[in-house]
């Protein structure tokens, strides 16, 4: 539990300390990559709670989602259509779904523990 958190903090610190700024033209790509990363993370947590976590699926999902989102945004820029919105939309919906399922799973587990205690 503490390891991912520690790495998250290390990553944040690295980002803030390195003082990198992405040019305006590429900020779309980064925002979509961030969304993809969060989507994968929450997907991973959900899979862990459902006890079907697989690290190959997890790691490939992360890189595949990030690159697919970037490619979609790139094609969108070339075509003049805001295709990156499609990715934002899809990731947003999945984020909420995953969060809802995680919440239910946690509640269920706690209820189960309570029932067993009784």
């Amino acid at each position: 539990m503490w390891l991912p958190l520690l790495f998250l903090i290390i990553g944040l610190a690295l980002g803030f300390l390195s003082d990198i700024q992405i040019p305006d033209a590429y900020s779309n790509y980064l925002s979509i990559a961030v969304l993809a990363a969060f989507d994968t993370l929450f997907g991973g947590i959900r899979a862990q709670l459902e006890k079907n976590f697989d690290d190959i699926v997890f790691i490939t999902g992360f890189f595949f989602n990030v690159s697919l989102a970037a490619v979609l945004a790139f094609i969108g820029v070339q075509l003049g259509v805001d295709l990156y919105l499609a990715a934002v939309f899809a990731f947003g919906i999945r984020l909420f779904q995953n969060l809802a399922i995680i919440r239910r799973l946690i509640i269920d587990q706690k209820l189960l523990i309570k029932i067993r205690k009784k």
Partner: protein
Amino acid sequence: MKKQSKWMVGLVCLFAGFMVAVQFQTTAGEPEIRDTRDEWEVREALVKQQDVQQELLQKISEADQTIENYEEKSSAEQVAALKKSIEKLEKKVGLTEVEGEGVSIEISAIFIENIEGVQAYPAVTPQLLSRLLNELNTFGADEISIGNERITSLSPVRDVNGSTYVNNRPFPPLPVQIKVLTDQPEKLRDYIHASQSKEIFNIENLDLQAEVKEELTLPKYDDPLHLKIFKEIGE
């Protein structure tokens, strides 16, 4: 959870954290615009604004005076006041002849005995002319006329089928007189002799000669003014 997968989740978290931090810096790290003027510059700006205010107040009082004239006086006097306003405005726009001291500039062709080939007769392009007009206005010209054409604020300088047109009439053949009325003719003449325009005219085989004249008469602008595109700017 296996140890390997823990590390993988950690790695992804590292990436995610890094990207979030960079994104945050990109959106939040835009440099704020700071006021770097020192006291002296602020004071200068203040003086400038006060001048503007003074000017505006003066304009307001003039307008008030005109309104008063309209309201207080009898109908004959009202007509007189109206006529006076019209005259004043016509003079301002350039619909009347004006006299005064100023500078007369002559644009003439420079002929160099050419060694080979025939030298083309130089022409004044609209770009050159506009540039000269802009420079004259910067140097403090009040009224300008080119040949027989009075320059008003609506006067176009255009290229029509390869020849230069001023006020929708062709630019007369060289040499051409440009008359400029100004308060400080000597200064304007010196400016012209040291100006960039003169150099650029010289490159185009044209010569600019300016001389101060005590008495200059500028022709009036006698075409109808096209005011279709004018709009009220509100109060």
